[in-house]
């Protein structure tokens, strides 16, 4: 088992992870390019990025469930200081999946097994990781449904996934994911498929679980508003690279990277009238082709001559706030701070 270490140490530390997909014809798609980040206990870390930016694959690597032919080519992933990339599939199953790290998905209905009752699906997690007898399992399953605020859990637990509404399905999924008290929940677009009102309920529930159990949450979304509102820190991915990472409040207030700024400007603000919504022109580069300069340069409004030649490094612009852009390097730019 993973021994809990000092509370101040990060719960999960992802270090220089590169994930690539070997394609036919010898081509290689780099889905995650040298990304490092940490998740603390009880922290909500948001990952923002457009489709194909590598968000989900990065998150799944913590469970070692990168879909084939994808491979974690380098780096290490430490959970409580132990490198789980050294674990076999068997060890992952016994020590990590479901008990340390769990995950919920975008489409709750398709993430539930349609052939079995909710009761079966929750009890299955207990069967895998705990040695309770049948009665205890039953009681715990009902208790779990009560915890995720499903009304009348004794009756509803016998029902099948399609008999629940979308929001209730997501609650069931959360119950299954949290059955064996994981310390980290990966929430992959948990509210994208739901009504706006239900979205808020689900996010409230996740935050409640965090407060009650000290659960850390890795919140994946392309919805910048949701992420800035709900997470403690944000990391922005673009074309498999980490572009900016920092406390949500800071990034919401003063985004540094031109891409983050572009993302912010493309989201309408309900309080501003006659607002211009600007899209980021162009599209994501082909990830199978390695280029010399900055990956965002072709779409960047503030691109300089150097951006085409030299790939920028991550720069700590202010404490705990990093950004991958030449605008903030003293070497290539006189400008010391970006902003809008």
């Amino acid at each position, binding site marked *: 088992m993973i021994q809990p270490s000092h509370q101040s140490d990060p719960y999960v530390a992802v270090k220089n992870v590169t994930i690539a997909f070997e394609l036919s014809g010898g081509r290689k798609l780099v889905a995650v390019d040298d990304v490092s980040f940490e998740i603390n206990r009880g922290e909500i870390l948001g990952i923002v990025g457009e489709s194909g930016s590598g968000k989900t694959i990065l998150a799944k690597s913590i*469970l070692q*469930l990168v879909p084939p032919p994808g491979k974690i080519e380098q780096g290490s992933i430490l959970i409580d200081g132990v490198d789980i990339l050294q674990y076999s599939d068997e060890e*992952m*199953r*016994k020590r*990590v*999946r*479901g*008990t340390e790290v*769990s*995950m919920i*998905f*975008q*489409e709750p*209905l*398709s*993430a*539930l*097994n*349609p*052939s*079995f*009752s909710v009761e079966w699906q929750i009890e*299955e*997690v207990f069967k*895998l*990781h705990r040695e309770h007898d049948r009665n205890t399992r039953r009681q715990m399953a009902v208790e779990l449904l009560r915890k995720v605020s499903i009304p009348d859990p004794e009756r509803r637990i*016998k*029902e*099948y996934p*399609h*008999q*629940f*509404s*979308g929001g209730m399905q997501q609650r069931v*999924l959360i119950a*299954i*994911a949290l*059955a*064996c008290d994981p310390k980290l929940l990966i929430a992959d677009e948990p509210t994208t498929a739901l009504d706006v009102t239900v979205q808020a309920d689900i996010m409230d529930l996740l935050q409640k679980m965090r407060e009650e159990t000290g659960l850390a949450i890795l919140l994946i979304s392309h919805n910048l508003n949701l992420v800035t509102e709900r997470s403690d820190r944000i990391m922005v991915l673009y074309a498999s690279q980490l572009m900016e990472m920092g406390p949500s409040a800071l990034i919401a207030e003063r985004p540094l990277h031109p891409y983050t700024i572009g993302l912010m400007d493309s989201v309408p603000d309900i309080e501003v009238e006659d607002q211009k919504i600007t899209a980021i022109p162009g599209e994501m580069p082909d990830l199978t082709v390695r280029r010399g300069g900055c990956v965002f340069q072709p779409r960047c409004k503030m691109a300089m001559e150097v951006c085409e030649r030299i790939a920028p490094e991550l720069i700590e612009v202010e404490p705990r706030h990093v950004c991958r852009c030449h605008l903030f390097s003293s070497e290539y730019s006189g400008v010391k701070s970006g902003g809008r």
Partner: protein
Amino acid sequence: MNSITDPTGSTVDDGPALMRPRRTTADAVRGWLRFMRGNKMMMIGATLLLLIVIVAVFTPLIAPYSYNEMMTSGRPFARPSASHLFGTDNFGRDVFSRVVFGSRISLGVALVSVFFGTLLGVPLGMLAGYIGGWFDSLVMRFSDAVMSIPTILMAVAVTAMVGSGLRVVILTLAIVYIPGGARLARGMVYSVKEREYVAAAQVIGERRTQTLLRYIFPNIVAPIIVQATLRLSSAVLAEATISYLGYGTQAPTPSWGLMLADSQVYMWQAPLLAIFPGLALVLLVLAGNLAGDGLRDLLDPKFRGSLQ
């Protein structure tokens, strides 16, 4: 919000069974019956099939004579009468009794061959679809090879190996039915294994074998059942064909196919000799197809609404 799977607009508690919570067996049976009432074709098929099964099970009680008993009192080629409902054949045997006995051959061969074909093919296909890679290629090339051999040719080959008779028909059909089951299962596994609940099973730490059995298999079983049911009728026909050509059941066993072959010679003198076993064959195949189609609708929640 039951609207997705409940196009009938009925409430959760009284809908048709199967995909719903099976509270009691009685509930399930009632649901099935209600569905059948809504689907006339399936009702006809199922009733007919049930009738033929009853005939096959209670053959000795229903058939007035043995299939091989030559009538000392009667004469060959007797017309239908009270004592011989379907008349007698060239040997003076009671055609009605022979047709009734024939139901056992037809149903028996069909059930056993489809059962073994499915039992071998489906797991093979499921493994191929789940594991993929070289194993998948191997299984699929094997099934291509088997599929490229026509059924009749296969029957000839099997005859050459194990001699003729009922077991030839059963063995031939079982072999012929392996690739179809394998292909269907493989294709279904391929589509289902990409679903999120399979990924979710991995996330909670489920084993791969359990994932295949508990998360994939239950969700592909409906089409497999339907395929097997529809195959029953094709097996009945195939048995008749093989026996008709002389590779399968041998005289005096009353296979319907064999009876058709024997009566061919007297086609002009006694056409009824061919008509009765032929009619039995048609009815059984029709019943099987109607029941199979209905079963497909019954097992597919999307079809329910349009039928009721």
